[in-house]
Every structure is written in structure tokens, then in C-alpha cells.
């Protein structure tokens, strides 16, 4: 398993989750966990996904999701889990 964290932040609108999930499904990325809140009209989502069977390289997925974010008008980040593990776990 290769865990990656996807975060989506931006103004709430119809179909954000749908578009992100469609991209993930098309690229063989499995969703393990989703949590989402809306704070003062701002959409905040964190997904934990498994990219072990993904059809593309991590850096490429990260770039494409960033572009998708620009299309929808939100900021999408895709980061390998290790950076958070390193920082917050001893």
C-alpha cells in the first residue's frame, strides 16, 4: 500500500467530490478514507488514498490534480503520507 493524502480547499460548489473521485477512479487510485467539512462557506476535504495500483507516477498525479483544482476553482494538494508521518509521529 502506498498512502497519499489529498486535500481540497476552496469555495464550496456543486460536484467537487464527484470530479476528484472521477479522476481517482480513472487512474486506478483507491480511496481509503474521506473526511470533509464546510467552514464559513469554504470547502475542506481530506482524503487518504492508496496509489499502489495507480497508472501514473506520484509526481504526475500531483500535477494533474493541481490542474483539476484550477479548473474547479479550488486548491488541490496531493502529498505522500510520509511527510505528515515524519512531522507528527516519533
Amino acid at each position, binding site marked *: 500500500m502506498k498512502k497519499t*493524502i489529498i*486535500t481540497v480547499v476552496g469555495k464550496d460548489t456543486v460536484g467537487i467530490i464527484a470530479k476528484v473521485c472521477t479522476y481517482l477512479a480513472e487512474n486506478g487510485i483507491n480511496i481509503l*478514507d474521506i*473526511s470533509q*467539512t464546510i467552514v464559513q462557506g469554504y470547502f*475542506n476535504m*481530506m482524503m*487518504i488514498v492508496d496509489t499502489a495500483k495507480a497508472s501514473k507516477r*506520484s*509526481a504526475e498525479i*500531483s*500535477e494533474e490534480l493541481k490542474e483539476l483544482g484550477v479548473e474547479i476553482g479550488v486548491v488541490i*494538494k*496531493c*502529498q*505522500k*503520507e*510520509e*511527510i*505528515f*508521518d*515524519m*512531522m*507528527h509521529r516519533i
Partner: protein
Amino acid sequence: MINFFEVAETNEMIDKENLDVRTITLGISLLDCIDADLEKCKEKIYQKIKKAAGNLVATGEEISREFGIPIVNKRISLTPIALAGGACCRTPEDFVSIAKVLDQAAHEVGVNFIGGYSALVAKGMTKADQLLMESIPEALACTERVCSSVNLGSTRTGINMDAVRMMGGIIKKAAELTKERDSMGCTKLVVFCNAPDDNPFMAGAFHGVTEADQIINVGVSGPGVVKTALEKVRGENFEVLCETIKKTAFKVTRVGQLVAKEASRRMQVPFGIVDLSLAPTPAIGDSVADILCEIGLERAGAPGTTAALALLNDQVKKGGVMASSYVGGLSGAFIPVSEDQGMIDAVQAGALTLEKLEAMTCVCSVGLDMIAVPGDTKETTIAGIIADEMAIGMINQKTTAVRIIPVIGKGVGENVEFGGLLGHAPIMPVNSFGCDRFVNRGGRIPAPIHSFKN
């Protein structure tokens, strides 16, 4: 499992507080490039750099994209060229021709600085050391990315005052040769006492002779992260203050450790060290001076500054040491003037003087850094400033450095613009009393008593 809050905290540090990995520096040994023939030596050096560092920039960028952490610089440090070129260089011009090769190789592999145009002369100078030192002004004037450093003393050996005197003149000459660019040459030249072999930061990075053939060293940064963390504990006592710095330094360093290990794995080059430094940039919110203000000073330079910097430096180390398997380099808070907006403001407000900066270097990780002084400052005065700084390093068993820029044609009150990460600086006044008879004595200052540990 990682939670929402932790992810948000990390990304906040990256997006809003300028958390980044300041540099991945690939150290390359040139000892196997030594040749009695200058052309052959240059060809070997060029080929070795191209081969070793060919994928350095691409690897750095890939890691940056995958983890979502900016990696600002990719750089190379080399075996001191006085050693690598000593067998074939007969004149300073020969050394300059090597510098041009380094510059070309740096451009081709895409690194923004290449360090190691250096000589280690803490106790004495060989003929090659002397030629290299003489060639520094020209080498820095005709190249863009080559960085030069000279180690002038150590706790073990004392201070080579002949070399100190010589560097006073060389710094002045480097300033002259680049006077139409605000004496830019001097921004790429630093002199040290107790220079570390594994420093990833420029301009002082070189690949020490005690190192392996190739090595990955990483320098982290994050003054903005520490500043923001301290905003939340305003008015609390020193225990809380110190704990907060320590915890923050730990988190910042962990990112450096991760990047260093990844870069090492992908390039199949051993991981050397993480340098736990708070390295500021001229960007707003990326300032060490701002941390000092957050600790409780009206401006950097106010009474209490040295104590505040001492505790900051110490807590950064304490937090960072546990976060990385190997720590080295300079590891502490940097206090450059031109590269730190808070420092610049403090100088302009009259709060920070050269003398106070000197006191601060007793407790920070390096020394007098990126300080612009009037262009008519005498060679011997520059040598005197260097000698003072070297003495602080020698006696306190720490690294100290001087990167000073006598800006030709400009005087106190004027400003100088270096651009980019090097920033801009107000020209600071220098004590006008002479020290000629002192620096012209010649010879060396003996090693201090506490160096005799055997």
C-alpha cells in the same frame, strides 16, 4: 492514522509560513580528478560533476512535487580546488580556468551555486593555496555560480594571520573587480574559522577531505514557522518559550530528514547530514530578526538580543538533534543582514550596529554575514574585522565566518541591491580607527590553551 488537524498544520506551515527545504547539496570529491596536466584535470572535473549531478535537479523537483514541499535550491559542493588543482596549476590564471569549468558544469546540470573554490589554510599556506587565494577576485568576477571560501583558523591550530591579512586585500580586490555590479563578487566569498566539512549552505559549502566520494547534505529552514508558533505563546515564561521553539524545530527538521533520505535513495548517494539552520530570506515572514522581536525585543539589536539569540540557537539544536539521524554543518540560526528583512529594518532604524552583530556571532551558528560596508574601508580594517571574528570562533570552539561587502563607490546611508535570495542592504559604518600595525605583524596566533586536550 494521520488526522485532519495534522495535515492542515503541515500545509499551513508550507503555504503561509514559508516552510521549505532550503537546499539539497550534493558533495562530490574531486580527489580522483587530480592530474599534473591542467587540461586533463579540467576535463576530469567536468565529467565527474556532469555524471554525479546529472539528475540532481530533476530528483529534487520530483521529491518536491510528491511531498508538496518546496525545495528551493539544488547545489553542489566540491573538494577544495586548491587541493584538486594543486598539482597542475602554476599561476592564478590556471585556477581561474578551473573556475570557468565549474561555472559551465553548474549551468549545464542546472544548480544555482557550486561551492568549493576553496583553500584550507588554518595553519599554513601551500604554494597552491596561495595561488588559489590570489585568483579568487578574478574567478568570482568572471563566473556566475562559483562560490569561494577560505578557512583561516581553527581551535586546534590557531589563526593564520598571514592569510587573514591577505584576505583583507582579496576581499577588497573582489569588490573592485565587480564594482559595476555593486561589488557582487564579495557575496560569493566567505572566510571561516573552524569551517565544517559538510556544510550544505553557500557561499561556504565545500566537500571536506574526510568525506566519502559523494554525499547528500540537506539544509532546512523555517524562521516563519518558529515565528508563528511563538505568536501563540506571547507573554508566557521562558520554559514555555523554549519548549515551543524546540517542538517546532523538531517538526521542521523531520521534513529535512525525509527529503535527505529520499534524495539519497533515489540518487544512490549516501545520506550525510541534515543542517538544522534557521536560514532567513528577504521574503516577508521569513526572518530571524522577526523571531527575536517575537521573543520580546523592540528591534533586533536592542539590549537582550544576544541572550534571545543564544536561547533560540540552542533550542533549535535541541529540537533538531532528535529529529535527524545525523546532524552536522552549521546547525543554528543564521543572522545575515541583507538576506533578512527584519535585520535590514533594524540597521535602518539605528538599532543594529556592526559591533552588536559581532557580539551576536558569539552565540549564533555562523558570523558576520552579508554585511555591506563603505567601499573605502581599508584592507587592513577588513583584515582586523576578520581577525576579531576568527578569534571568537577559535576561543569558543565554534564556526565563525565573515562575508563582508565593501561596496565600491558607495558610503554609509546608501543602499545596495544584490537581488534574489541575496537581498539588499544598507551600508553600515565601520569603526574608523586603524589596526595596521596589528594585522601587518605577520605569522600566526597560537592555538588556545583549551585546544590541548590529548
